[in-house]
């Protein structure tokens, strides 16, 4: 029975195997066919020029095809060929009963044991069924039951694809085959150059440089053959081959290169650099000696390489490795201007020194200076030739005079340098462009004027705002007060700005001095009123806050001051406007003069050209005409602009009429240019002459009228001149009077000479007293508070003066010093006494003991000082006791004359104040100066009345000093105004006064006090004397002491 079952199992296993084999064959057939087809298609695409991307696609598709076939096979096997049921279905696909039997036989066999154990079924029947089924199974033909058709079809497909391959490869030839190969194996690896081995020994290289470089021949032995040399260098190679040779060559492979173009700045132009184009190797024969010694050479042109090669006929026997050739480039030369700076401002007739440095890697050839005058062509001049030097520096001078540059014009210049490159041609490089600007006083003046005008506009704004917004004649309240305060602040700020602008203008050498002076005066005037107004308003504010708004007196005072400020601003605005106009008018004249000068230059050029005509000269002439025209246009435009802004009080109608004539000048120039173009020189000259007459008339008229002031200004200027004359008269009279007093004084001194001589013995005692006084004052200083500082300082200084004077035996000065020292000493004593009492009463603040001690010391300083004064006064007896009646009568007369002079000075001061109300031509401190002089005159009159010629004369000299300072200012003003008092009333500069005003800090040396000339003139100023005494105390070498003493005495006499 077991046999039957095993036969069934064998039959089923056979069915399974067959089906598997068929499925595998089909997979192989279809998968391979598809894969091959994709590969072929990929190859075809590659052969048709597709990119290498085809290969991965083709390969991917082929792999996919194979994968898909495999999957499909497995699936079909799993579906129909595995397990007994599947095998039974495959074996008995067409015999259903057999299939059922087979299946039941298999299942019954699986359950036979259980059937046998349970006896559920008949085992025999089962076995019988198995035997019958086995028998039937044996009769089944497997080849028929499971046909091999799929395998066959797959084989056919594979065959077809193979055939297609065959056909395609035959048709596509090597290309398709190659492409097929590339699909299968990828891109073939490129074959590397054949490895070349050295075939020569060490190389001896001889460099022969281009002649222009001036470099000696250079020989290098034992090299590997590497060449590095400038282009144009001849290279000679000598070496020995590693084998006997008959023919040897050099294969030179270098890039062709065009010479790069030069550009300014000394750098090669990248745009001009051509891309290297490779050429085939150049073959150069080598000489062969002794079978192995090789020699030959080449000229370096570009970088690249060379090889040695041994040949026989056309056959290459050996090829050496490439040896580099480096052509060293010839760099562009360089030139730099090291001085002056990029742009400088100079005068038109200056010579400008230009420092330069030039360099080149090989050698310089020459240096050219290029000048570019406005509206003209560039002018080139070789200024230096070089002997192939590589670096050079130097200086050259540019003479501006022949270029006839006008004010404000710019000359551009630069240097160009060339190297001596004879191989690729000289290369040129240029320095950066520098400029020389012709100093234009007019431009500077214009700038100054603009600055001043900006401030003027601010003044106008302030005045306008005040007129429109400042409440007047109304009862003040805190609100209106605040408006007023803001205006006071604006006034002071404006004054500060004006003062700063004046200081700035003063530092500018081109800025009109009178502009600075005027601004300073205006500043002083505005500030003075603004401060007074601010103080008054402050007081008014206090009253208002205290609830006393009914104080009309203060209210009126503030209103008056506001009106005063308005008047001050009005006066300043009008005067400054006129001053600006005056300046502008003068600028017009200057411009016209410049224009006339340029026309003359042109005429002279034209004359020269007539004598020696040439194309070049004609070109230059036309360029000059063009320049003149451009200049003229600019000037006319400026003149028109200036004239527009000029109040015709200054630029009157006649001058404007002349200006309109200037328009004809442009037409004249056009005609000159036209004649020149035509070559009609005579006509051009005639035209130029006509222009000359026109210009002359224009200039004359402008000169005549530009300086003519308006009626008001003329009157003002006249008044100022009158004041000056008055001053001169007073001064002359004062001089004469002082001289007369001096004679009386000399007589007095002569008479007391003996007495002074005798006082020498007392001098030491007096000096001790003075020292004692000073010492006590110094000790008192320890208790000095803020209140007594001034008295303490003055006392101390004057006591020091006293000591110095006594040391010098200058009793006159000593008496003066002690007299001046005593009042502050007394003040000091009183103040310290008060302080002591306060401290004792209210001991919280200061130490009472210390204050008391200080007061005692100050008090104690007084007796010795008084004693010195008494002794000195005894030395100088009352002049009335010394001088005779005649001299005393003279002193009386002089006193009266002095008083009269003081009255005259008073009238002068009044006139001055009146003038100051009309225009800010005087600084605010001017009346003080006259006042100071008057004070001295008054004192002089008093002293003379007291018959004291010494003190009288001293006061007279001080009065003269103040007058002289004032006069100096007036003279300066007259000098600027010109025309004998009929000119413009230029301002009187504050700096000339030296009166200790705020402007005094401007550092202008002209503000120093005027020295009154003449021997025995008067005593030196106190400060000066003190300095000298101080210096004298410093001592001198013994041998010189007498001389030094005498020198100092002379100085202070």
């Amino acid at each position, binding site marked *: 029975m077991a046999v039957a079952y095993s036969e069934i199992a064998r039959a089923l296993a056979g069915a399974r195997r067959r089906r598997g084999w068929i499925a595998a064959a089909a997979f192989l057939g279809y998968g391979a066919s598809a894969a091959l087809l994709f590969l072929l298609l990929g190859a075809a695409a590659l052969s048709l020029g597709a990119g290498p991307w085809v290969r991965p696609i083709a390969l991917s598709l082929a792999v996919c095809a194979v994968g898909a076939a495999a999957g499909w096979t497995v699936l079909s096997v799993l579906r129909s060929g595995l397990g007994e049921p599947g095998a039974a279905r495959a074996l008995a696909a067409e015999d259903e009963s057999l299939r059922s039997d087979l299946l039941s036989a298999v299942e019954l066999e699986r359950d036979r044991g259980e059937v046998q154990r349970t006896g559920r079924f008949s085992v025999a029947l089962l076995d019988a069924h198995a035997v019958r089924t086995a028998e039937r199974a044996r009769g089944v033909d497997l080849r028929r039951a499971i046909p091999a058709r799929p395998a066959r079809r797959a084989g056919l497909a594979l065959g077809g694809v193979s055939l297609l391959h065959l056909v395609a490869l035959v048709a596509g030839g090597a290309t398709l085959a190659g492409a097929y190969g590339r699909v299968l194996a990828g891109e073939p690896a490129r074959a590397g150059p054949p490895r070349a081995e050295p075939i020569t020994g060490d190389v001896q290289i001889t460099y022969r440089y281009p002649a222009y470089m001036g470099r000696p021949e250079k020989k290098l032995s034992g090299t590997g053959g590497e060449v590095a040399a400038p282009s144009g260098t001849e290279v000679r190679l000598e070496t020995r081959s590693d084998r006997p040779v008959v023919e040897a060559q050099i294969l030179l492979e270098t890039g062709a290169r065009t010479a790069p173009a030069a550009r300014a700045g000394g750098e090669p132009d990248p745009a001009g650099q051509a891309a290297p184009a490779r050429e085939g190797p150049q073959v150069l024969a080598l000489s062969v000696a002794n079978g192995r010694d090789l020699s030959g050479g080449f000229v370096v042109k570009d970088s690249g390489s060379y090889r040695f090669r041994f040949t026989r006929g056309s056959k290459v026997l050996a090829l050496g490795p490439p040896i580099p050739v480096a052509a060293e480039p010839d760099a562009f030369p360089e030139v730099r201007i090291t001085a002056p700076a990029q742009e400088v401002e100079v005068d038109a007739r200056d010579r400008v020194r230009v420092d330069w440095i030039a360099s080149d890697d090989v050698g310089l050839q020459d240096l050219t200076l290029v000048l570019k005058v406005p509206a003209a062509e560039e002018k080139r001049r070789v200024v230096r030739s070089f002997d192939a030097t590589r670096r050079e520096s130097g200086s050259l001078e540019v003479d501006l005079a022949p270029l006839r540059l006008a004010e404000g014009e710019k000359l551009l210049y630069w240097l160009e340098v060339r190297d001596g490159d004879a191989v690729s041609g000289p290369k040129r490089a240029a320095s950066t462009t520098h400029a020389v600007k012709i100093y234009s006083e007019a431009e500077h003046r214009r700038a100054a004027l603009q600055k001043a005008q900006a401030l003027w506009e601010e003044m*106008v704004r302030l*005045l*306008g705002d005040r*007129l*429109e917004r400042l409440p007047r004649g109304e009862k003040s309240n805190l609100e209106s007060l605040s408006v007023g305060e803001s205006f006071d602040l604006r006034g002071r700020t404006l004054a500060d700005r004006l003062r700063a602008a004046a200081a700035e203008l003063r530092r500018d050498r081109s800025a009109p001095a009178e502009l600075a002076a005027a601004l300073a005066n205006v500043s002083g005037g505005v500030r003075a009123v603004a401060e007074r107004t601010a103080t008054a308003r402050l007081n008014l504010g206090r009253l208002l806050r205290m609830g006393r708004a009914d104080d009309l007196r203060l209210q009126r005072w503030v209103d008056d001051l506001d009106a005063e400020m308005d008047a001050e601003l*009005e006066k300043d*605005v*009008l005067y400054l*406007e006129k001053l600006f106009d005056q300046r502008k008018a003068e600028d017009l004249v200057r411009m016209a003069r410049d224009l006339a000068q340029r026309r003359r230059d042109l005429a002279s050029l034209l004359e020269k050209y007539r004598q020696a005509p040439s194309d070049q000269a004609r070109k230059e002439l036309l360029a000059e005409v063009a320049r003149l025209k451009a200049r003229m246009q600019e000037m006319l435009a400026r003149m028109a602009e200036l004239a527009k802004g000029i*109040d*015709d*009080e200054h630029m*009157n*109608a*006649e001058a*404007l*009429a002349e*200006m*309109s004539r200037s328009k004809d000048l442009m037409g004249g120039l056009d005609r000159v240019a036209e004649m020149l173009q035509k070559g009609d020189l005579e006509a051009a000259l005639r035209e130029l002459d006509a222009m000359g007459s026109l210009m002359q008339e224009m200039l004359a008229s402008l000169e005549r009228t530009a300086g003519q002031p*308006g*009626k*008001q200004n003329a*009157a003002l200027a006249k008044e100022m001149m009158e004041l000056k004359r008055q001053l001169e008269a007073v001064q002359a009279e004062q001089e004469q009077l002082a001289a007369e007093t001096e004679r009386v004084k000399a007589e007095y001194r002569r008479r007391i000479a003996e007495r002074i001589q005798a006082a020498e013995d007392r001098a030491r005692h007096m000096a001790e007293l003075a020292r004692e006084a000073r010492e006590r004052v110094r000790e008192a200083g320890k208790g000095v508070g803020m209140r007594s500082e001034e008295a303490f300082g003055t006392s101390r200084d004057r006591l020091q003066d006293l000591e110095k004077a006594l040391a010098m035996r200058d009793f006159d000065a000593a008496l003066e010093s002690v007299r001046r020292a005593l009042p502050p000493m007394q003040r000091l004593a009183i103040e310290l006494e008060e302080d002591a009492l306060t401290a004792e009463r209210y001991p919280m603040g200061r130490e009472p003991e210390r204050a008391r001690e200080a007061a005692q010391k100050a008090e104690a300083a007084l007796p010795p000082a008084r004693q010195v004064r008494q002794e000195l006064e005894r030395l100088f007896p009352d002049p009335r006791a010394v001088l005779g009646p005649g001299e005393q009568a003279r002193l009386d007369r002089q006193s009266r004359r002095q008083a009269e002079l003081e009255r005259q000075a008073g009238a002068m001061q009044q006139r001055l104040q009146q003038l100051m109300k009309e225009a800010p031509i005087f600084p605010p401190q001017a009346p003080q100066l006259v006042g100071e002089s008057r004070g001295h005159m008054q004192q002089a009159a008093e002293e003379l009345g007291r018959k004291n010629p010494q003190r009288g004369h001293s006061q007279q000299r001080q009065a003269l000093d103040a007058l002289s300072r004032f006069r100096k200012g007036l003279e300066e003003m007259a000098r600027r105004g010109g025309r004998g008092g009929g000119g413009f009333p230029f301002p009187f500069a504050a700096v000339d006064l030296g009166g200790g005003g705020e402007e005094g800090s401007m550092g202008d040396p002209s503000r120093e006090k005027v020295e009154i000339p003449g021997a025995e003139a008067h005593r030196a100023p106190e400060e000066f004397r003190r300095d000298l005494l101080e210096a004298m105390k410093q001592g001198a070498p013994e041998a010189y002491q007498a001389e030094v003493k005498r020198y100092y005495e002379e100085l202070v006499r």
Partner: protein
Amino acid sequence: MTGRALRLAALVALAPALAAPAPQAEDAPQRYRQVAVAMRHLVDEEMDQARALVEPLLEAHPGDPAVAMAAGVLRLHEQRYDEAVRLLEASDASSPGTPGDWLELARKAREVTRGYQRAEGRHVVVFHPKGKDEVLVPYLQEMLEAERAALERAFGRVPAGKVAVEIVPSTRDLARLSTLSEEEIKTSGTIAICKFNKLMVTSPKALLRGYDWLDTAAHEYVHYVVTRHTRNQTPIWLHEGIAKWAETLWRGRGGESMSPYSAALLRDAARQGRLITFAQMHPSMAKLPSQEDAALAFAEVLAAVEWIERRGGPGALVKVLDNVAEGRPADQAVSRALSLPFDAFLAEWRRWMATRPLPEGGDRELKVLRFKGDPKHGGSHSEWADIPDDRARGFARLGEIFRERGRWEAARQEYAKAVSRVGGRSAALASKFALASLMSGREGEAAAVLGEAVRLHPGYAALHVNMGRLYAKKQSWQAARDAFLLANRTDPFDPEIHAGLARAYEALGEKALAEREQRFAGLLAGGDER
């Protein structure tokens, strides 16, 4: 140029033509006599008589140089310049040394008037340059019609037909159209001329501040009428006196043009014996050496005519003219009309000049004509130089500074300070002050200032403009219109005047006039032709 001089010139001019070979010898002497007579008529501006002679001759003898000469001159007088030039060229009258030089005159006239537009009225034809000068036309026509009617009433008759008026853009062109030089024109202030059967009037735009162009045109029209009335026999002093006296008839009574300045000048000159003699006035007032002399001369002759009127009563003037027309010399004509020996007349006239009451209001100073484009006549600042007080001038300048910056209140205060020092003496200052007051909202102050200033300076256009502005602000349209019309009498090229007039007319319901003025305003504001 006097009639006698012109006659002489015409005859001398005719000489070459008369000397030329006659094409038809048989009737030539007769023809040339006719030509000579025609030339005399032309010089005397007796157009009808001249035309009656020349036209038939020209028809009969078109190729005769002498006839062509007369016909050319006739055409020149008819403002047919192209024909005049053609005929005068045919006459060969331009040969060197020919006095008068009609051909040159005709050529210049043709050149100057090329492109001119023609505006024809009832009795007036105005020729004017294209453009802004159009604004003058209606006023000119209206005024001339009024003046014509007034003269007809005063003299009994006026010429029939239409009077031609040519407006010239500059004194240079006026010189080219006339026989005066430009220098003479500017020196004497001559601004219009009546000659060659037409009135030549310089456009007010040629002057910096315009001028009383309507009175001036009326003045020239009186010359035109008197010339025809007396067959050009009137001597210059009488001619100018009558013209001066009658130039205001179109807007009022005669003799109103005597300004306080002229009257004062006249009185001083009469008292000091500095009068300009009648002989010095010959041949033309334009030949006098200065505008001051011309002003004095005009005042003298005006006073003479005034005295004739006062002495002889109404109609005396007509009698004088009739006597002159009858061929009597002027002294006899005056003597007969007044029944008074001429010397006595002269003595009375001198006394009248010395005692004549000064008119109230009006210009106190000579109005010097300031020509545009002539730098010698100064710029905008020149007017300030007229303010005599230094400080006032300073304040005025400050006012200007603020005005230029639009600071009206500040400007007003500064102008006020100036006015407080010099009063209304300066029209420019008063005008600026009024404007500043107006702009800063002080209309009452502006009105007061303007009222006073207008009384003192009735011919100052800016004052009237400001007055117009003030009235317009108050919507007093009638008063505004009158103010703007007064301004227009001097400075018709100010667009604001016409814009103001347009508003006033609009408000008054005068639609057509409002439109016209609006158009003028646009025309004037359109470009800077001035």
